[in-house]
């Protein structure tokens, strides 16, 4: 199918929107546009970070998901309480693939569902007493836990519990950080506010509360890498090869101590801007630590990023950076030689969280693939601004796209592969469109770094060129 022109895409948007009742259509209109890289900013053509319309089937989650699921959950030596009824913690238990080392239940508590399992009486009489008791029990049951976070589910903010007071009291009693987070799911409009609230609580309770054993001029922190399928490890290793010292990982495979001591970093390296720009800005203001956004998806962007990072350091690091780039060239070329011919010209639609809708574009382009549509579940305008130049001319851009819209767009544009989440996956596969989950890497990964790109290329080939899709039509049905 030939690619749709700008005009045709504009028409497609109107056609799709026609199905909505008036009020919803007027709102949804503000979330869809066709990209023009010449534009300076998206504020005129797009509204983002707005409430989802009721009843439309948004893919978005909630603030709890942003705090417990994304930012805090991966911190491995702390216990994260899903505070409230059993559900939220149950569904987010062990499904995000933020890998970490250690032994579950002994020194590592990431893949555990620790909950106050609220019953009716807790709703009626309040849950503070229970929370207090629970925290004492955590200390007994998990002696190696270095701290505790309280991740509020919806009811907490509605029944007037004072989790801050409990946290303060218990923190003093047990002599460990206990962090209350007001990330009830009804706050904000998506996961995004949860990221922000979680960042604020790191700032208020953790950051700067311990000093590192030593310090060097080459100390950096990785901010906003959740180690999905080992992403942060595959990034860390590049930074180490460059002669830098990664003193903290936020927050994939992260620890309390790393977060406490990050204020001694010389440079903060921000991968997922959306979920952690807040803390980076704070460290800049309070500690004067500069921060730099980088992109470790695909050799082109990695190369650019490695140079940009090295430019913040001395000649020694810069020379090493060139060595690193040179040392991976051959291998990367071999990967491209194998996969580019199989993927060249293939069209891609994306719909991911707050970073990847723009950050992975370069990696696809390295493979000769073209992005024809992309959008964020919970991006803000600054994310879309950052997307303007990354996405090509006439790329369809959709914010908080509904299931209805995304299906209609895909039906009309027939991409060769779609990258989105598990809720979308099976829908598009039924439509005969190959799919990769781009939150969880579809149980693969890492995709970050040089090592990750090899896997990314392999996986895209696996999806796009899966023989099964070509068998869709029963041979006895004539063409």
């Amino acid at each position, binding site marked *: 199918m030939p690619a749709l022109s700008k005009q045709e895409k504009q028409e497609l948007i109107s056609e799709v929107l026609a199905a*909505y*009742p008036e*009020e*919803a259509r007027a709102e949804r209109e503000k979330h869809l546009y066709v990209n023009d890289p010449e534009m300076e900013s998206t504020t005129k053509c797009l509204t983002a970070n707005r409430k989802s319309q*009721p*009843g439309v*089937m*948004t893919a978005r*989650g*909630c*603030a709890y*998901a942003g705090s417990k699921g994304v930012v805090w959950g991966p911190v491995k*030596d702390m216990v994260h309480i899903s505070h409230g*009824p*059993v*559900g*939220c913690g149950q*569904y987010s*238990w062990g*499904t995000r693939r933020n*890998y970490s080392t250690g032994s*579950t*239940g002994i020194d590592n508590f990431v893949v*555990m*569902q*620790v909950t*106050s399992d609220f019953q*009716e009486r*807790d709703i009626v009489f309040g849950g503070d007493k*229970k*929370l207090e*008791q*629970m925290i004492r*029990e955590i200390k007994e*049951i998990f002696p190696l836990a270095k701290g505790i976070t309280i991740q509020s589910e*919806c009811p907490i903010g*509605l029944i007037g519990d004072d989790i801050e007071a409990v946290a303060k009291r218990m923190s003093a009693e047990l002599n460990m950080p206990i962090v209350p987070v007001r990330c009830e*799911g*009804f706050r904000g*409009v998506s*996961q995004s506010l949860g990221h922000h609230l979680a960042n604020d609580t790191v700032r208020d309770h953790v950051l700067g509360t311990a000093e590192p054993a030593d310090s060097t001029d080459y100390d950096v922190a990785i901010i906003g890498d959740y180690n999905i*399928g080992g992403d942060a*490890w595959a990034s860390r290793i590049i930074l180490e090869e460059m002669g830098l010292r*990664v003193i903290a990982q936020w927050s994939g495979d992260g*620890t309390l101590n*790393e977060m406490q001591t990050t204020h001694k970093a010389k440079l903060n390296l921000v991968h997922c801007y959306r979920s952690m720009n807040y803390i980076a800005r704070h460290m800049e203001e309070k500690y004067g630590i500069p921060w730099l956004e980088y992109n470790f998806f695909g050799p082109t962007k990695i190369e650019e990023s490695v140079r940009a990072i090295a430019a913040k350091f001395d000649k020694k690091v810069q020379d090493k950076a060139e060595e690193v780039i040179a040392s991976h060239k051959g291998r990367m070329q071999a*990967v491209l030689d194998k996969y580019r011919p199989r993927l060249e010209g293939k069209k891609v639609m994306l719909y991911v969280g707050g970073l990847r809708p723009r950050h992975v574009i370069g990696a696809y382009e390295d493979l000769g693939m073209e992005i024809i549509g992309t959008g964020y579940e919970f991006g803000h305008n600054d994310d879309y601004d950052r997307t303007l130049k990354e996405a090509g001319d006439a790329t369809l851009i959709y914010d908080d796209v509904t299931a*209805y819209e995304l299906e209609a767009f895909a039906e009309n544009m027939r991409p060769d592969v779609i990258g989105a*989440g598990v809720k979308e996956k*099976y829908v598009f*596969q*039924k*439509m*005969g469109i190959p799919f990769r989950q781009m939150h969880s890497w579809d149980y*693969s990964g*890492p995709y970050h770094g040089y090592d990750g790109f*090899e*896997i990314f290329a*392999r996986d895209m080939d696996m999806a796009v060129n899966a023989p099964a899709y070509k068998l*869709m039509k029963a041979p006895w049905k004539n063409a």
Partner: protein
Amino acid sequence: MQEALNIKDHNGLFELERYKESQEAKKAFEKWPTEDEIEKVRAYTCSDEYKEKNFGRTALTINPAKACQPLGAIFAAAGFDGCLPYVHGSQGCTAYFRSHFNRHFKEPFAAVSDSMTEDAAVFGGHKNMIAGLKNAYALYKPKMIAVSSTCMAEVIGDDLNAFIKNAKKAESVPADFPVPFAHTPSFVGSHVTGYDNMLKGILFQLTQGVEKAPADNGKVNIIPGFDGFAVGNIQEIKRILKLMGVDSIVLADNSDVLDTPLDGTYKMYAGGTTIEEVKAAKNARATFALLPDSVEKATKTLIKDEWAQQFFASIPLGLAGTDAWLMKLSEVTGKEIPAELERERGKALDAMTDSNYYLHGKRFAIFGDPSYAEALTDFYMELGAEPVHIVVTNGSKKWAKAFNKKLSESSFGKGGKVHQGADLWHLRSLMISEPVDFLVGSTHGKQIAKELDVPLIRIGFPIFDRHHLHRYPTFGYRGIINILTWTVNAILDDLDRKATFNNDFVR
């Protein structure tokens, strides 16, 4: 060149020396405990003292084996033709429910939320319901919308009935458009309770105005319940009923929508119980609920009192379980159990004797929903296996008491104990102090199974980490062969893996 590439993903990459070094070096920044400290704590968590502390927990729940009400509600709702599950409340829950089912069934799962936010927390979700029903109706063109609620809506006390009435007044949906509803507070009961409540809501609403006929229509109703094996089981039960010549109506038949072909189109509504069938169900001769825990209160009361029907709740799992179920069905319908089913029974029994030696006397632990846990335990005892720990986080004390009594009266079961209200962290302690030969349950048992090196037989919900199991029935005589196959082969795999000299080709 291609061979030379040898791409390693997360399963091999991090075993490489350079990554091991990198991770080792990271420990300094982590202030990671020393090996000694870790080993000391590990040993402590395996001690009797620790077990006592663990069982002394009064407020802390760790790794429970249950989910919340609305999950069950939308599972039931998905079983009706053209029905769009709608969850009134904050939107995050719905995203979680949907992905939970996606991961288990590897299928799409449609459901909408009306996305209540902070203003709704103050003023209630009235406006959200009006706009939500309107948008959902316009976009997804359902034949019915089934409304359940998240704990947010429940805590602020939203009145679903009144809101839906008002939405109809505001013309969000036509006045005669069915919008059944159920309040599904997640701080009461569990996912099976939600199934019960939503099913009752739908059955009640759709049969309003349906006259109770003087004579029944000869059909039987089947309620499958909250079952991770719904696809295989509903198909199997329908096959059995056909063999018996029994005319049936499956109430909440989600076996098609969760098992659609890849044919180039996505069909959001792909079969299920029709509104007409539900109407006819009111005048059926009897209702058979296959999972008693899924119909415990609301649905049972509706069918017994309002529909004035015979109501049976028993699970056709295992030999005696299937026998009893078929006999009851035969008794109620007057249809004979056909020779073909008797042949199937014989084959199942044959398989049981083939595998007997690997199962007799084997000690096992099991966790999951009460109906499944009990029926599976009964079945394993038919194989001569001995239950040791039965962990059920939901369920009732009454149920546990009756089950414990039954166990104590069985020569195979007398060493077993039901731990109702316990969680998987309790189970870990139990399995350390009294080890077993195999564990039965959902994917969530994976950690314990791995740590204690015990095979995990995946029967339960959710199963995220194995494919296609839900397509196989666990019910009926064919279900016996499936359960048996999974179990005995897992035991044999374990035996082969641990064998030092005995590498027999024949087992």
